[in-house]
């Protein structure tokens, strides 16, 4: 199996220099993908919203440096400081892709309803063509109502908007002249070129463990990015997802299921995830990587030994 990494994009890890060097180190260490998070804007507090990741990944929370910009164990959205840099994922992905040649580059997750489907489709198609088909769009519906308000997008409609966007973008990526007739978006005979390098377009992986998120995977997506999925629940939940996918008339075997894990994950747990149907992993780190070259190289060498190589043999 393969494992990717989430380590760039926030605070000291949002600089172009850190991202370039860390993605090159990740590629050399054999990581399969490199993932970037998304908050277009931030607020000092989120009184109208409920942070959905308070449960963590369903595994033991790893030891984290107290000044890591994102604390996995916190029960509210826990950016230590709202004035830290939080890079735009699409531009960051471009920067990362330009520095590498084989590693896949993805968002985990980009808040889809906060973007425009035609603009985003064109951006990602351009990028996918530039890097010969290495882009993955990890997309979520979003949880922070305050962020939606700032962007002028109706929070209560985010699920429907997201569904329309996925269909609209796939049309733009696939068809010679693209037409779409939805409630929120409509266009007729629009030419959107370049097309992505990958046939069928940029793969869309949906994040979230709610029923609507799983329905979206079953009906529309190319993969799933579960975060809070404890290992003992994984078989039942994935079996259900596959049944939903079959019910939607699609082949569940074509889905890529990429589970977020921490560095503390044991090989035994990873095997159990594999047996439950997980196809690949994404190592979430924050605060673990030294910024200097030698420290970074050492860290990636360790990860290669304890994670990447053993997982390759799974």
């Amino acid at each position, binding site marked *: 199996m393969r494992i990717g990494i989430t380590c760039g994009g926030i605070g000291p890890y949002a600089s172009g220099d850190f991202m370039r060097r860390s993605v090159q180190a990740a590629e050399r260490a054999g990581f399969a993908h490199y993932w970037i998070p998304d908050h277009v804007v931030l*607020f000092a507090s989120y009184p109208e919203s409920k942070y959905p990741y308070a449960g963590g990944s369903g595994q033991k929370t790893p030891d984290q440096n107290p000044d890591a910009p994102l604390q996995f164990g916190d029960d509210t959205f826990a950016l230590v400081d709202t*004035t830290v840099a939080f*890079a*735009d994922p699409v531009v960051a992905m471009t*920067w990362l892709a330009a520095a590498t040649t084989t590693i896949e580059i993805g968002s985990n997750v980009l808040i889809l309803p906060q973007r425009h489907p*035609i603009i985003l489709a064109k951006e990602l198609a*351009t990028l996918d063509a530039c890097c010969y088909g290495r882009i993955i769009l990890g997309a979520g519906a979003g949880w922070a109502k305050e962020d939606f308000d700032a962007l*002028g997008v109706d929070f209560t409609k985010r699920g429907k908007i997201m569904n329309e966007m996925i269909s609209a973008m796939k049309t733009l990526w696939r068809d010679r002249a693209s037409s779409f007739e939805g409630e929120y978006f409509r266009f007729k005979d629009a*030419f959107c070129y370049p097309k992505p390098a990958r046939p069928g377009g940029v793969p869309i992986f949906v994040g979230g463990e709610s029923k609507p998120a799983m329905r979206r995977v079953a009906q529309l997506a190319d993969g799933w990015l579960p975060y809070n999925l404890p290992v003992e629940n994984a078989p039942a939940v994935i079996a259900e997802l596959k049944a939903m996918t079959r019910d939607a008339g699609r082949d569940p075997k074509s889905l890529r299921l990429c589970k977020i894990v921490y560095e503390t994950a044991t090989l035994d747990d990873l095997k159990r995830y594999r047996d439950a149907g997980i196809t690949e992993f994404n190592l979430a780190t924050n605060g673990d990587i030294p910024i200097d070259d030698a420290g970074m190289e050492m860290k990636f060498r360790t990860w290669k030994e304890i994670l990447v190589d053993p997982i390759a043999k799974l």
Partner: protein
Amino acid sequence: MKIGITCGGIGPYASGAFIRASAKAAELAGFAHYWMPDHVVQLAAYPASTYPYAQGSGQALPEQSNDAPLQFGDDTYANVDPRNPLIDPVIGMAWAAAATSTLEVGTNILVLPQRNPVVLAKELASLDTFSSGRVLLGVGVGWAKEEFDATGADFSLRGKRTDEAIIAMRALWTQAVSSFAGTFDRFTDVYSYPKPCRREGIPVLIGGESKAAMRRVAQLGDGWLPYNLPIDQAGRVIAELKAMTRDAGRNPEMLRIVKIIYSNACPDDLRRYRDAGVTEFNMASSGELPTDEAGIQAKFAEWRDSIVGPVEKI
């Protein structure tokens, strides 16, 4: 004086390989900036719109091969085939910036009212930090009603939206905690980080020669990107622009005025533009460059001698 180049982004010049190679070659040849065009989607025909660039740049047209994707002399929008790829400009700039270290990267022009300013501000601020402050945002209000219809943006409100978007983006770029209350965009106490490298934000240069565009330059712009400005009119028009800028309570001497020219422009003409107040040039090229790396390098070496060198002495 300094000169930049517009040569990437359309047709055979839209590939990542071409953009990378030509941006590097441009930097090596001494070009100051590298500009990307924008059409988010294209239509087969534009019956509801008037193409505003039918007059060209106001100079003698250069020789162009028949299969150049953009024909400068045509009186309708003349992308030879709507299926010619036309890159997203933000991704194109990021790709070019990642391949270079001193070249400024810009849009000429990005159709601002088709984008969400909060998202665009974040994208460009991220790129500006990655590239150590090399991003220029050239904007226009757009002319193709059909493209506005496809993106769901109101063509009749494009001027107002452009004005608001510039002010909103500056609030996000320069305020520690940003607020803006406009007709189309409004947000209160949002954190948008990273900030651009330059304290005053990313320079916003405005395209177009209409009175409305010139008013926008005078009131809101960091510069102007004139295309159709014949040399014998430049003195009078720029004097008028400067008077309008003074009337708006701003210093016209800080404006960057970047005139588009063709590769056949003679130094004497460029001197007259300089005397009229143009501060730098942008050479528009379509169909002149080969797409192989050796050919690209050879052509740029030729331009270094025939154009960049002579312009530097002006």
